[in-house]
């Protein structure tokens, strides 16, 4: 009995997979009223039929971005209570792009092929576009196997697997880019005609009885934030800046509603304001707030969210008390810092460290020990003093543009929160930062904290 439940919980808390429909929990109360789906729907409504939404979405690694995007996709597809129904194309760009070597052409090819594939597999719509089929025909010799070369025409429909395979073949990728580069400007234009063709097909599509007709489509490009190097640019921040700022016309030039995931590091860098001026307001998914700003005091609404999330993973037939002792649950939630993927990893490890239920505090201690060890050896020496400076700061802010703090946001030794509420807009919407609770307890942090001297003003 215990074994079965532990096994179920272990697999329900897979840090690899975004929350399914069954597991998705709306944590809006803990995330400072930040709800991606609500925000996107409101903006789609405002955009109407005249304008296309170009929406940047960000957040910590593992904070729940993909789960939120899945939830948005499901909401759009079901269209319950919505005036218009959108066909969502959720494109995980990492299936196509080598994040160490990306060119804008790669992104365009990925969008076209994923759109064709989604329409085919989900609605049985075959997209035909002479322009892209011709381009694919021109580069088919660079695809990998002889069998594929002899295939003849490369239909858009079948292109997905071949384009995906380019990801793992740098030489072929290079040749494809060289061959298509002269067509780059027209490709941006032509992709918009593909969207139009898709729209027409969607409007013609007869949905099953009881379902609404589709009015439009919406593209979601997930994992775009993981791109490390744009062709010809230095890796990391310079490449991300190149893609999202210097070549923004490519991203904003799509005649379709599009959501792009963008690195948190770029948003919180000195380039953040430029991003806002090009794309409009950005949406950052914060941690679930489990303690109040600048204190250790528990934030009840955040804890309720996490409890609700845990209940969904455990299943309705069992209670939280059956699965965790009170002290184990408190320790888990507190030390997760409201970071959902970390919480999932801790729970998996706790399942493997216990001999029975409820999971005791000792098993949770051991579960967290793995992360303690990785943090204690993984944090760069120069970061400790800055972590302490944040800990000691009165406003819980980080200096803008400081590369070290940006790196700490990326490696999650610092977590971002938003208060929400409506009483004080400045307090409600200003992000604030806290040292990851696990890092805070490390011996090294405590040593540096004890020796800390406030820098001269």
């Amino acid at each position, binding site marked *: 009995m215990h074994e079965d439940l532990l*096994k179920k919980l272990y697999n329900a808390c897979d840090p*690899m997979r975004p929350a399914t429909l069954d597991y998705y929990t709306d944590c809006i109360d803990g995330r400072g009223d930040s709800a991606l789906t609500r925000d996107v729907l409101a903006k789609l409504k405002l955009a109407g039929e005249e304008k296309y939404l170009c929406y940047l979405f960000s957040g910590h690694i593992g904070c729940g971005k993909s789960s939120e995007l899945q939830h948005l996709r499901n909401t759009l597809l079901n269209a319950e209570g919505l005036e218009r129904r959108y066909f969502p194309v959720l494109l995980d760009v*990492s299936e196509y792009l080598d994040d160490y070597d990306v060119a804008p052409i790669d992104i365009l090819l990925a969008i076209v092929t994923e759109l064709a594939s989604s329409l085919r597999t989900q609605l049985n719509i075959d997209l035909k576009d002479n322009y892209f089929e011709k381009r694919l025909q021109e580069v088919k010799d660079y695809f990998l196997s002889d069998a594929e070369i002899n295939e003849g025409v490369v239909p858009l429909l079948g292109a997905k697997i071949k384009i995906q395979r380019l990801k793992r073949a740098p030489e072929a990728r290079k040749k494809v880019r060289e061959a298509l580069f002269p067509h780059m400007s027209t490709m941006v234009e032509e992709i918009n005609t593909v969207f139009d063709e898709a729209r027409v097909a969607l409007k013609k599509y007869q949905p099953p009885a009881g379902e609404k007709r589709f009015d439009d489509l919406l593209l979601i490009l997930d994992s775009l934030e*993981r791109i490390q190097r744009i062709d010809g640019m230095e890796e990391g921040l310079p490449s991300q800046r190149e893609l999202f700022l210097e070549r923004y016309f490519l991203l904003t030039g799509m005649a379709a509603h599009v959501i792009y995931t963008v690195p948190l590091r770029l948003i919180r860098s000195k380039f953040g304001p430029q991003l806002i001026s090009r794309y409009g307001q950005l949406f950052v998914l914060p941690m679930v707030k489990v303690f109040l700003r600048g204190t*250790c005091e528990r934030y009840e609404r955040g804890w309720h969210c996490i409890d609700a999330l845990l209940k969904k993973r455990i299943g309705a037939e069992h209670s939280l008390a059956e699965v965790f002792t009170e002290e184990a649950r408190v320790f888990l939630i507190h030390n997760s810092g409201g970071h959902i993927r970390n919480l999932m990893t801790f729970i998996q490890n706790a399942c493997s460290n216990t001999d029975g239920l409820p999971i005791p505090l000792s098993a949770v201690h051991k579960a967290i020990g793995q992360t303690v060890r990785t943090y204690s050896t993984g944090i760069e020496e120069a970061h400790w003093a800055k972590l302490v400076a944040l800990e000691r700061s009165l406003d819980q802010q980080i200096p803008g543009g400081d590369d070290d703090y940006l790196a700490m946001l990326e490696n999650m030794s610092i977590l971002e929160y938003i208060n929400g509420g409506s009483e004080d807009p400045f307090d409600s919407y200003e992000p604030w930062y806290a040292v990851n609770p696990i890092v805070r307890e*490390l011996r090294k942090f405590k040593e540096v904290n004890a020796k800390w001297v406030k820098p001269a003003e």
Partner: protein
Amino acid sequence: MGETGRMIEPQPELPDSFPVMEDGTCNPFQPDGSDEDEELRTLSRSLAYAEGFKLFFIGCNQPHYAKKLMDRMQEQNSQLRLHNMQLPAAVPHLLDALVGEIGDRTIDVLVVYGIEFSLPRAEIAEKSPFVANLNAARNSFPLVITCPLILVLPEFALRAIMRGAPDFFSVRSGVYFFQQHKFGENQARDLSLRDDLLSTNIFSMEERQERILQLEERLREFYALESTARDRRIEYRLLNRLGELYLQGYQWEKAENYFQQRLSLARNDNDPADEAEALRHISLVYYGQRQWRKAEECLMQSLSINKNYGDEFSESRIYHLLGMVSQQQRNFDAAHNWYRHALAITEKLRDEQVAARTYYQLGRLSEEQYDFAAAERCYRKSLDIEEKLGDEHGAALTYHQLGNIAEMQHDFASAESWYYKSLAIMERMGDDLGTARTYHQLGCIAQEKREYTAAESWYRQALAINEKQGNYYGMALTYGQLGNLSIVREHYTEACRWLSKSIVTFWQCNDQHFANIGIRNFFRAYKCVSNYEQSTLKDIWTEAELGPFPTEEEIGGLIA
């Protein structure tokens, strides 16, 4: 007196922190290193629970040892079917390599070894395309691999993935650490000649013995003189030199005896400078015997005297030694502070000889904290000065350490190249103990490369020298490593013979930590043999007078 860091920088009390719930067993934020059996049990249970793709990491600096553990897990849990995959060389994309391996096969658990071959040096590994591509391909892994995936890799590679592929690392279902406790010097923090800041003259054992006989004869002649004819400075020098020579030969009692005589003289003569120096030298005897508190007490007394008299030259040497004592106690921050104090003075006084040695120690400090880039920077600084000063022996020691960091990063070709460079000088200068250290490390590399015959040959050469020189600590290390080698070769009786010698010798050297490692490895070997062979191993234990043979339950506790 023992809290050295606080003498200079008083520390405020730790502020309040988030409460940590305690069940009285452990503080999860200060793990004492992994308990391998428990780690193995937890991993085994995770694999039993896991459905579909799950990502696990095993951090282990000795892959063949990790493989043995995986075999053990397989034996303990026959329902698990592990499929081992060894990457023979660098691959550009891990996922592609895995897809090729899996083919049409149905695999329960895929265990991958050899990832480190695809990574460059540690300091740039996190920025390599291989690591970046792990991040990129993260979501593709579950599409093509439908079973749990275990990546076995050294800790530097694990760190590179953690930093360079944070998205990939974040979806892990577990990280487990296993480490066969190696009797290598990077763990042992040996007490090499370089550490003592004494004369740079290097003697072979025979030459040292001749020198001691001659100086003792001279001392006798000195005491035969009428008291009015005795020059105190000669007496100081003789006592000091004899102490140094005994110290270099690891003959602690005799060394202390001479240094104590010198201390008494200095106190009688009310000569604070000599008193301070004698105390500093006595601290080295305690250092050699691993009596850290006593060593620290002598050094603090010496420091206090020197501060009163403004002798900065000696002060820098004391800071250096205090750093070494702190380092031995794994108090790395304090050690770093002391070395920095030493360097500040050596720079001011342009005392390059001590500066070179302090950079060398800073290198060892960074090495112990696995910061190989910083270690290499320090060693290079040390080397620059040594080459400038023509300090060949110092350079040889630094080459050895450069070999050490290359070895720790599994860059065996570079490591061997540095070791051979060091060896050439050591052999030419007749530094037998230095030569033995390098033989030992070459043995470790051969063992890592699974060239077991070569490994044994290096160890035996190292052992021959250490036994001849009476270097017990070096002997204990090599006995232990010969024991480990025998375990790898599955010669368990032989392993236990070596390990029992290692345990006894570590006890003689006051190193309980390494003695415990020997004990743990002894019982790991014991657990690998049949009941009949176990009785032979019991006899070995008893013959070595290692105490009452533990019960089965106690053995479980010992190897946990």
